Every structure is written in C-alpha cells, then in structure tokens.
C-alpha cells in the first residue's frame, strides 16, 4: 500500500470505531435473526454485502418469507431508502474528482458512512477520496463480518449486550453537534427535528419517515430566501 492510501486509512480508522461497535452488534443481531428464521449463513452474508442498508435487510428477510412479489419488494425498498436521495444531493460536490472510487462511494453510502464522510474534518495532507473510500470500506467490512458471525454462531453468544445499540443514537447526536458547531444558522436542524417528531406522533414509528422527508423538503424550499440570507450574513 502506498503512502497516500496508508495515511488515508490511518486517518479514517478512528472515525469508524464507534461504527465498528454498532455495526458488529447490529450485524450480529441481523445474522442471528436470519439464523432463527431458518436461513443459512449465505443469506446474511450475501444480503449484507449486496444490499448494505441495515433496516432494509431486516425487511428483506420478511419479504423472502412472504409470497413472491418482486415489484412490491422494489417499491417498498424505494420508500424505505428514499432518504439516500438526500445524502446523494449533499454529496454531489464532495464526491467530485474521486475517480473510479466514486462508484463504490455511492454504492456504500449508508446512513453512518454518509454522516462521517459529510462531517469529518479531513486534514489537508490526507487524500479526500481515499479517506472516504476507507470509511466506506471499513464500515461495510464491519457490517458484513458481523452478519456472517451472527449467522454462524448466533446461538452461542452470552454476554449482556442490552443497550449496546444505543451507540448509533449517540453517534448521530455527536454528528449533529459537530455540524451544529460548524454552521451559524440552525433553522434546518429545527425543521428536521420538529417535522420528524410531528410526523412520528401522527403516523407512528413505521410510517413517518417519508412524510417527514417531504415536509422537510417543502419547508426548506419555501424558506430558501430567508435561509440563504442568514447563511450568508
């Protein structure tokens, strides 16, 4: 490995440590879940690598147990993963000039990877493209290895992991704070939080994300003039 890549890997790794904890736990849970549903280890292995979108993989397991309906599976996936559209729009400029790695960066852009690649303060002497590449790759490795180990040894794990999944909540809180400190105007954070809570109250935990996204989009569009003025002020 040449110096540029090694330096990028060394810079990227610490950012991914909390995700290692969270993904190993959730990946293990996913592997165990698949195991309990009666799938061999190949299913969590292949699905975690190919789909690489946590919540969707749990849903996909249930789709495999229902009757065959690929169109419904496709449409459901679009709805559950629609938030990726927001990530892509936010990364249009940041992925520029990353060469062939760009395809993989887009392919592996899950919630956690996006959050780190968007907010990380990458030192100027570190290659940005390789940094984001290693964040994406490490995160995917954590997730897939967790799922495989869970699928293989799921029944044998006995240590009290209750509450470990909170590591993801905590990480998103830190990422929000980092972005909060970085930006002068916080209106969009309030818009996101407020609409999400309202939609959650109205539609319940399984349905609210899509409507919340729509409301965020509409509000941010309507408030463009004042928001741009405040950001520039």
């Amino acid at each position, binding site marked *: 490995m040449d110096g540029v890549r090694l330096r990028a890997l060394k810079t990227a790794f610490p950012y991914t440590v909390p995700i290692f904890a969270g993904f190993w736990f959730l990946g293990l849970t996913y592997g165990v879940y698949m195991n309990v549903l009666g799938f061999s280890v190949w299913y969590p292995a292949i699905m975690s690598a190919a789909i690489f979108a946590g919540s969707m993989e749990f849903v996909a397991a249930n789709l495999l*147990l229902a009757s065959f309906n690929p169109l419904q599976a496709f449409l459901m996936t679009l709805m559950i993963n629609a938030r*990726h559209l927001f990530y892509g*729009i936010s990364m249009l400029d940041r992925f520029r000039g990353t060469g062939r790695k760009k395809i993989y960066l887009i392919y592996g852009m899950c919630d956690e990877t996006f959050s780190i690649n968007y907010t990380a303060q990458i030192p100027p002497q570190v290659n940005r493209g390789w940094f984001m590449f290693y964040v994406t790759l490490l995160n995917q490795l954590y997730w897939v290895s967790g799922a495989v180990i869970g699928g293989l040894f799921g029944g044998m794990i006995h240590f009290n992991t*209750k509450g470990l999944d*909170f590591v993801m909540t905590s990480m998103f809180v830190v*990422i929000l704070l980092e972005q909060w400190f970085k930006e002068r105007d916080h209106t969009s954070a*309030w818009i996101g939080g407020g609409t999400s809570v309202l939609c959650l109250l109205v539609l319940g*935990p399984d349905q609210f994300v899509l409507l919340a996204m729509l409301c965020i*989009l509409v509000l941010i569009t309507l408030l463009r003039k004042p928001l741009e003025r405040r950001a520039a002020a």
Partner: protein
Amino acid sequence: MKMSLLQQIITIAAVVLGTMLTRFLPFLFFPAGRKTPPFVQYLGRMLPLSVFSLLIVYCLRHVSFLQSPYGLPELLGIGVTVALHAWKRQMLLSIAGGTLTYMLLVQTVWA
C-alpha cells in the same frame, strides 16, 4: 420457505436495485461534468442538518415517553453524550460515555 431459489434471488435483486437507485439517482441526474443547479446546491447545504435530526428521531422512534421509564435512559444517555462532547470535543469519548451510561441504566436501574 414458499419461494424457490430463483424467486429468492429475484426478490433480493429487486431490493438491491431499489437501494442502489436511491443512492445513484442524484448523481445520474446531476453528473459531475455539468454545473449543478443552484437550487439543488442549496438543498445539499440545508438537508444534512435536518437529516441528522431526522435520524436521531428515527433511532428513538420506539421509545415511549408516556410510560415508565418515560424515555429517561435515552434522555440521560443523550445528555451525557452532549455534555461530554461540548466539554472535550472527542467523538469517541462522547459516544462511549453516552452508550455506557445508557447500558448501565437499562441493565441495572431500569432492568
């Protein structure tokens, strides 16, 4: 299992296709060679903060604030995370502190 192996492969492929479409679509619509419309650039600047708030609400979506323990473990876990981060600005420390607080609370106080 009701499905044949081929049907399972098609179902997984449909999910992969749907996921990849949501990830690649913005890049297909606004290729790097051409200038991204100002409105889309504006969205790219404004959406992340609101999405991070959305993700936190999403993580807490199953927490019941009306029944004991009234979301207290979550609120305390987040409180410790925020306090540590405002104090030290060390990502790993803040996350570890918040998570350990939460684990301790749900395994002992509200077990």
